[in-house]
């Protein structure tokens, strides 16, 4: 992770001196075995395509532990992040996969004559946002926040594989709980839900103060 950041912010390197040291230390540990394993992992990643590969799967295939595989992935990711590469290794959720870089998109659009782009409606985005931030969450809770029926939208999102049923709430009627899927994490480039941008605050402190005054 640190290494990625370094590459992205190479210009203001002074802040990252400490990390640079780390990186150099690691570089020394790249022995032939490591490089070989990394190349095999790269091959696996190529084969798995859009299915991607998880740490666990890779560790099993390479007959090593996940910690080691993570180092291999770090190494490969760093390599592909260089400007002279057109693909990158992205990790969303638990899965690593090869993706063409965003910088390829314009040329790809011309090559494949892509005119349409996938879009999510505002309603879909809001519903997904609510689920992602509050999961697991029931339909009624979502409807309360949006003030609109969510039944059809939930079915659509489920059909698109962006959300899944995730058990039932203990509330009366045992309503179904919804959570986002790995695919959803992929769609929003999230490693985990902790990476969601912080919800904007609209200062309801003031409101609470008012409350006190009323009382």
């Amino acid at each position: 992770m640190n290494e990625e950041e370094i590459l992205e912010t190479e210009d203001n390197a002074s802040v990252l001196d400490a990390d640079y040291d780390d990186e150099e230390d690691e570089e020394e540990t790249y022995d032939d075995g490591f490089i070989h394993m990394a190349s095999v992992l790269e091959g696996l990643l190529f084969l798995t395509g859009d299915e991607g590969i998880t740490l666990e799967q890779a560790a099993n295939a390479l007959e090593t532990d996940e910690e080691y595989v993570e180092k291999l992935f770090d190494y490969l990711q760093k390599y592909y992040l260089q400007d002279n590469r057109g693909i990158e290794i992205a990790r969303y959720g638990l899965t690593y996969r090869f993706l063409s870089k965003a910088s390829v998109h314009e040329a790809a659009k011309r090559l494949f004559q892509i005119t349409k782009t996938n879009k999510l409606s505002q309603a879909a985005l809001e519903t997904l946002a609510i689920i992602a931030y509050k999961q697991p969450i029931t339909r009624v809770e979502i409807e309360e926040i949006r003030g609109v029926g969510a039944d059809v939208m939930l079915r659509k999102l489920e059909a698109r594989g962006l959300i899944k049923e995730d058990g039932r709430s203990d509330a009366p009627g045992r309503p179904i709980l919804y959570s986002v899927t790995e695919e959803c994490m992929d769609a929003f480039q999230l490693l985990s839900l902790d990476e969601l941008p912080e919800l904007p605050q609209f200062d309801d402190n003031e409101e609470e103060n008012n409350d006190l005054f009323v009382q």
Partner: protein
Amino acid sequence: MKEFKVSIDAFDGPLDLMLHLIKEKELDLMNLDINVLTDQYIAYLESMETLHLEIAGEYLVEMATLIEYKSKRMIPGNKDEIDSEYEEDPRERLIKRLLEYQQFKEASASLNAMFEERQKMMTRPLSEEAEQFMVAEEEQYRGNPYELMKAMRKCMMRMQLSKPIETKYTVKEMSMEDRELEVRAMLDKLPNTFRFESLLEDCKDVPMFIVTFLSVLDLARQHILYFTIDEEENIWFSKGVVA
């Protein structure tokens, strides 16, 4: 007065419309004047109506709430009652809802940026060659649906033989969903691999049998169960990943 009209479709529900009105009329959300908001809201819906646009029920529900609040406020000397009657002041509640909705509306904008960025990156399907090997490997394990049907028939025959034929029976209505829950409960007590018959012990009649079969198919679809059939046409199940 109305310089431009926006279709109600442009709004994602009544809260979205209220936020729009608050912004347009420069109302202070924290010190929301519900009277002004109510008037604006009603005026907006009315203008929709004159355009013969259908107004979704949700908008009307919120309108009713707004009017109720406003009318209560207009009854003199009734002010205290409003506060004591509700657990939460409806005005505070509305502000809270608007604030919360606004949060997610804004969050969805940044999510959209992430989504669009991700759309620019593309991937390729799993290696076809690798997939061929995978399927071959799986088939030893999973069997195909027609084999399953054949084995199922044999199962039923066996059950008929083992039970005396009753001349009268009541059809116990049971939905597949209910049965599926029962089967899931049974799974906890069963070993990792078990025979289909293990699930049939409490089946008294054919409809029940069939419902069980259907629920098992559904469980297989959800990868909660995997099935395989041996040479003697026994159906074996093994537990899969529980989603």
